């Protein structure tokens, strides 16, 4: 085998993130999605804490499913719809109900786990608005928080559930 085979090819591809096509140029398909989001597209909301699937701080939605962007290749993300924490608010600024609940309930200490949790919890409440406490615990079981002890996080999720149902009732 000639060693030219081992030189990764540089190419351009599009990545659909938060409803918009982004052009990624002179890149390799073997790059990490988390790296591409943060370093190539400047979307630094997704955090790189462990880089090895253990903590969930890099969580994103891929075609509507929660995944760790640190264990995913850019190659696996092309042609799919990626939503990062930056894309969870309709206008791109302000705070979502889930984010407001995290602030109000004091569920943020150092904040490193927060973006991943916001993505996991938003995904949960879209799928199961009335999730029980057990379902909440299961949904965030891949999100590691070193600071809060989770009590305030669960309280925040429940507060977000109440805020959502109050809003639904008003409609």
């Amino acid at each position, binding site marked *: *085998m000639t060693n030219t*085979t*081992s*030189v*990764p*090819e540089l190419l351009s591809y599009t990545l659909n993130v938060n409803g918009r096509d982004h052009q990624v140029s002179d890149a*390799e*398909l*073997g*790059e*990490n999605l988390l*790296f591409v989001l943060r370093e190539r597209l400047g979307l630094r909301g997704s955090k*790189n804490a*462990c*880089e*090895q*699937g*253990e903590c*969930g701080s890099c*969580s994103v939605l*891929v075609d509507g*499913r*929660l*995944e*760790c962007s*640190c*264990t*995913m*290749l850019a*190659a*696996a993300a092309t042609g799919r719809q990626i939503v990062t924490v930056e894309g969870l608010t309709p206008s791109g600024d302000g705070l979502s109900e889930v984010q407001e609940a995290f602030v109000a309930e004091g569920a943020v200490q150092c904040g490193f786990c927060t973006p991943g949790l916001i993505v*996991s919890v938003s995904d949960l409440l879209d799928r199961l608005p009335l999730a029980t406490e057990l379902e909440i615990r*299961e*949904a965030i*079981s*891949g*999100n*590691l928080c070193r600071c809060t002890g989770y009590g305030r996080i669960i309280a925040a999720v429940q507060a977000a559930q109440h805020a959502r149902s109050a809003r639904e009732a008003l409609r």
Partner: protein
Amino acid sequence: MLRLPRFRYLRPQSVAEAADLMAEHGEQAMLVAGGTDLLPKMKRGQMEAEILVGLGHLAELRQLERSDDGGLRIGAGVTLSQIVHDAALARLYPGYVRAAALVSSPALRNAGTIGGNLCVDTRCNFYDQSYEWRMAVGFCMKKDGDICRVAPASKRCRAIASSDTAPAAMALGATVTLVSSAGRREVPVSALYEDDGQFYLAKAADEIIESIQLPAATDWSSSYVKVRRRGSIDFPLAGVAVALKAAGPVIEEGRIVITAVASRPLDVSEAAEPLVGCTLASLLEGQRDELLTGVAASAARPAKPLDNADLHYVWRKQMTRRGVEQAVREAATALLARSA
């Protein structure tokens, strides 16, 4: 910070093309499906490949279909989450679905495949570390070094079999279909594993798992018990898969597979023989506790956990026995509920 090393990514259009690429590139190439085991290991320098051949996008590997004999053929690219959320599967193969549900976290199960889970690397406290950690402590035989840090006199690596679904599939008597450029063969899941932590897979490196076949489960039920520190994320420190057959009130056949206590999942079904002829009710009402304790003790006898994982190895062996008792009770409970 951990970074992925550079490699070439190839995207074949079919399993056949993937097999050809694997044959063409030989030892330089590795397969990647969900990437949830391989990519962290590449970041930590535990695995190296100049070329990755991607399987994740192949729809051909994501089929789920009934086979003629009433069993099920599941494509290797089906994700663990798909298994977990399939109600029909949970009725037929509760042990297999339970094992899949206990793997890692929701996000990783959305990406991780059942083919990748069968091939998941063996684990050890001296190996599952960053390159820098391993360099500082001293490399070991499994990667970059030449001795075993856990058992220095050992001629082979003692890393731990860590797939949760492999023992569950073995207890069901499942088979896998392997495809390479040389052809196709079907082997029992148990034939995938070698009793060696370093060369833990008995299949050739260029053989692709195309599907797993679960045989018909009429009159069978199954269960899986996993021991670990936390209720999520952690790999098994001991695991027990059980399958029991009973058309009526009496157990007709039993299978037990233990894992995470050796370098491959161990089929210890011989230990289940005393269960044959027991009524489900007597087992569950406590009249056969002594018999069950005996079954658990002989099932756990081949377990040889070493001091290379979380929690104490003596305790892990004890918990293997408890796991057998619990898994037998769970499978018997399901059978009794069905006959009622």
